[in-house]
């Protein structure tokens, strides 16, 4: 590619700098001042404007010389090749075991808040793995995924409230109900494609939330469902007093951290199970069919597949995982309300899938960790938290538009003989 002249980007640089100044001035340049009961608007300090000017200049210079900056993006995939100690199956299994061991030991080495945070990460991993089937593998843009999460959570909450179900009894039912909801909602909408599908699923997600909010007699409306019991370990409760408590059974002193650790391990097991199931699904014909469908719907039809059924299976299976995650969320929080299932949750889960690399399991796990941890770690930046979050997204889109770890397709190496023997 021939080098562009030095000032080829002059107009776009002016434009970008102007936009920066305009947005910066309108967000930071004015200040609201309350004097008694009246609100006055005044200009911010000179220092703010000087900083704004510098920021504008920086943007201008960056845009102007963009093409002459050393490329950061070009060879990232080469850098991210599988390190040598992960090449063989045996080594991979060893590292997998070590990671699992570390994850199991983790809660015993750290404090309660960290374990709680890790559990939250695990919930998002589970959700993202489910959504990854729908978005990453089957290529259906679902913006209402949180609806199934809500169905799972409310299934447990309401089954407990009305019928006294325990967590373990409710968990499969929650998955089943979420699957049924997915099937029912998927059936009419999966004939749509792309943007239209996204809009309709967005609507369905909101409908579920609004239903939960307004069926006050059944769901408690905005008050939610409270006092949902924690799960038990083979009937042993993690409470201070009770008939059959964990610490009495094992003859150790009561410690509230036990319950937190138990929840963490439970979430870990659910995540491992989800990853395992999805891995198997990807290698099964149905996984191939999802992928084929994402690539070319007409070709699939010409091969006698029914796109609606294949999409429906992806939608339903994806919803099932959200149902499990929802039931777990309900038991962890003890309290659920429609507020927990707003659109922003769908957006975050979708962002995890996209950031991780569509269809890639490991990528999704890493992205879930990043997406949940970063906002937590960035708490000290207060109101700039979401701004940083946005910045991270923009940078990701520039440097790694395919996600952290783009999906590598599994290959069956069964019949090498056929190809090599000539």
């Amino acid at each position, binding site marked *: 590619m021939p080098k562009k002249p030095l000032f080829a980007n002059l107009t776009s640089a002016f434009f970008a700098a102007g936009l920066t100044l305009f947005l910066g001035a309108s967000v930071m340049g004015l200040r609201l001042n309350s004097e008694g009961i009246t609100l006055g608007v005044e200009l911010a300090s000179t220092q703010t404007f000087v900083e704004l000017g510098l920021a504008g200049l920086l943007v201008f210079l960056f845009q102007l010389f963009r093409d002459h900056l050393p490329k950061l993006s070009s060879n990232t995939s080469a850098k991210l090749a599988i390190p040598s100690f992960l090449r063989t199956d045996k080594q991979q299994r060893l590292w997998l075991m070590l990671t699992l061991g570390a994850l199991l030991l983790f809660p015993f080495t750290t404090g309660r808040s960290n374990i709680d945070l890790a559990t939250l990460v695990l919930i998002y991993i589970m959700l993202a793995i489910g959504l990854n089937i729908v978005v990453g593998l089957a290529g259906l843009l679902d913006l209402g995924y949180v609806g199934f999460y809500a169905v799972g959570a409310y299934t447990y909450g309401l089954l407990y409230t009305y019928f006294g179900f325990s967590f373990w009894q409710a968990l499969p039912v929650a998955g089943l109900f979420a699957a049924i909801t997915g099937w029912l909602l998927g059936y009419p909408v999966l004939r749509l494609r792309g943007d239209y599908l996204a809009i309709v699923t967005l609507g369905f997600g909101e409908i579920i939330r609004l239903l939960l909010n307004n069926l006050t007699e059944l769901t408690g409306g905005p008050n939610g469902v409270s006092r949902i019991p924690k799960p038990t370990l083979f009937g042993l409760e993690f409470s201070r007093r009770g008939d059959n408590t964990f610490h009495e059974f094992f003859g150790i002193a009561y410690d509230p951290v036990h319950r937190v650790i138990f929840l963490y391990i439970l979430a870990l097991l659910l995540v491992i199970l989800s990853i395992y199931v999805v891995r198997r699904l990807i290698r099964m014909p149905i996984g*191939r069919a999802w992928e084929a469908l994402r690539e070319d719907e007409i070709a699939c039809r010409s091969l006698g597949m029914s796109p609606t059924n294949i999409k429906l299976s992806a939608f339903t299976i994806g919803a099932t995982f959200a149902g499990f995650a929802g039931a777990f969320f309900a038991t962890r929080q003890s309290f659920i309300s429609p507020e927990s299932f707003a659109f922003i949750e769908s957006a975050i889960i979708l962002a995890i899938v996209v950031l991780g690399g569509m269809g890639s399991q490991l990528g999704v796990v890493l992205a879930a960790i990043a997406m949940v941890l970063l906002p937590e770690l960035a708490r000290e930046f207060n109101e700039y938290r979401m701004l940083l979050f946005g910045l991270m997204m923009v940078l990701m889109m520039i440097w790694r538009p395919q996600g952290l770890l783009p999906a590598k397709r599994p290959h069956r190496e069964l019949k090498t003989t056929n190809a090599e023997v000539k």
Partner: protein
Amino acid sequence: MLQLEDVHTHYGAVHALKGVSLDVKKGEIVTLIGANGAGKSTLMMTICGDPKASQGRITFQGEDITHTPTNKIMRNGLSVVPEGRRVFTGMTVEENLAMGAYFQSKDIKEQQEERVLNLFPRLKERFHQRAGTMSGGEQQMLAIGRGLMDEPELLLLDEPSLGLAPIIISQIFEIIQQLRETGTTIFLVEQNALKALAIADRGYVLEHGKLVMQDTGKNLLANEDVKKAYLGG
């Protein structure tokens, strides 16, 4: 084997097929030629049940398939190689072929895979390569191979020569003849009338949604009107 009786097809208000009747007998190569927009692809897709015929009757192996859903039609001894190849570019040759035998037992799958690979030695060389990285001719071979994977009695080919180099086109047409020898009946829709008529037992000429001519391939090649309209004088 395949029979169309007075088939009409509408796209909304557009009357694309205006009463087409034709038949394909077992073991034949039958070709349908016509200019752009004559309704060739529409006819092909109507046989596959998408869009459905608004009038008339389509029977395949004695069974009325006029109102059968597309996925059922495609699973019962009929395969189509869609226009523009449409292989799964992200998948390997092996996986593309496997998708073709999605509803077949493992035995049939392996047996057909061997047959396809013998027919197209090129695909054997590229067995683990991603389809998107192959040339147009190889992709067309793969598309035909994929169509053959579920042991079709009748193979519908929609413009297999589209966008290919002349030498590759010749190869493809040779393979089509080979296919007939192994017992597959072929219905070929083509713009390349010269090549298509040369290998066809019989041919139909479609104009503005109506069949205007039908004869043996040889006679059509020699026909003055056909020469003028489709063979460049």
